[in-house]
């Protein structure tokens, strides 16, 4: 599964999301939208909003660190 986390370095829920995938030993790509502005636009396009984190799991977009949703997608 291709997982991308759009995050900022200071955002607590971004840290939690990354820690969750680290704990589960699931690989992901982290994009720091505070420095990568084209990727910020990509995140806004995908999620229709400007809050972080945004997690893209094989095209399924999760806004915020919604552990229940993430776990449900991982179980599929």
């Amino acid at each position, binding site marked *: 599964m291709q997982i991308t986390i759009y995050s900022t370095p200071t955002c*607590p829920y971004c*840290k939690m999301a990354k820690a969750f995938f680290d704990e589960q030993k699931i690989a992901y790509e982290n994009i720091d939208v*505070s420095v990568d502005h084209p990727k910020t636009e990509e995140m806004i396009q995908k999620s229709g909003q400007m809050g972080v984190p945004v997690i893209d799991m094989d095209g399924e977009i999760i806004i915020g660190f919604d552990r229940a949703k993430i776990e449900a997608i991982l179980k599929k």
Partner: protein
Amino acid sequence: MSAAIYSTRKKIKTLIISKDMGGQAALSSDVENYLGFHMITGAELAQKFETHLRDFEDIELVRGEEVSAIKKKSKKFIVQTLGGKAYEGKTVLITSGKVPRKLGIPGEEKYRGRGVTYCATCDAPLFSGKDVAVIGGGNAALDAAWQLTKIAKSIQLVTNGEHFKKADQVLFGKIRESKKVTIYYHVTTSRIDGDAFVQSMEIKNAKTEKFHVQGVFIEIGSIPATQYLNNFIKLNQWQEIVINERNETSVKGVYAAGDVTSVPEKQVIVAAGEGAKAALMEFDYLAKRKA
């Protein structure tokens, strides 16, 4: 989480219903006064709490669900969620904390996450090179404005009060010196407008003024998360759950702990201690009920 650990160690069948584990503690930037940690971020501390919690396999965790109502049904309580589910328990321990206070103006809800944000720590970096407004008259507003001076193009700092008298004067001094920041006193924010995202904000005092901004940071404090309780329980004038020293509420069998309650001082360590105490009181109640 502290309550759940104490509860399960007393062999009480324990279920946690939580929209976002960690609550307000997770959003604190640096925590320097939690015993055993010289300095830790709120997010890391919350993560450690949860890892500790997960050592106890008997604790059932319903995550991502928000409680919409609590009702009494004969000798039991029914906890309903926004997702339409219902859970039953002999006792309930409420630890729903606080949520950001809202302005309640047109456009605020519509543009939430589309330029309107309540978490500068999370979202400030997304407004690099943009014109933004910060609303509030306390330290949180100053913190947000300060973070944004390093990122945004311009910052309109708006307060309906006076010169940040109760806030950190060192920080206020630094913000006043920043050429990026314009401060407005004694004004109210009346509306937020835009298309798909925020484009402008309107303020009022003697006259109405409109700013072109792409971000609106609302930092006007927090309120207890008790709206869903709807006359079920006694609240004080600040909408906090009234508890006694045993964490008992006005409804027998319902306990409360932490920032959502009338307990003085809203601190992570106070909330953790109160949670532990409430669970022990709950155990005492259940033991006596059985006897």
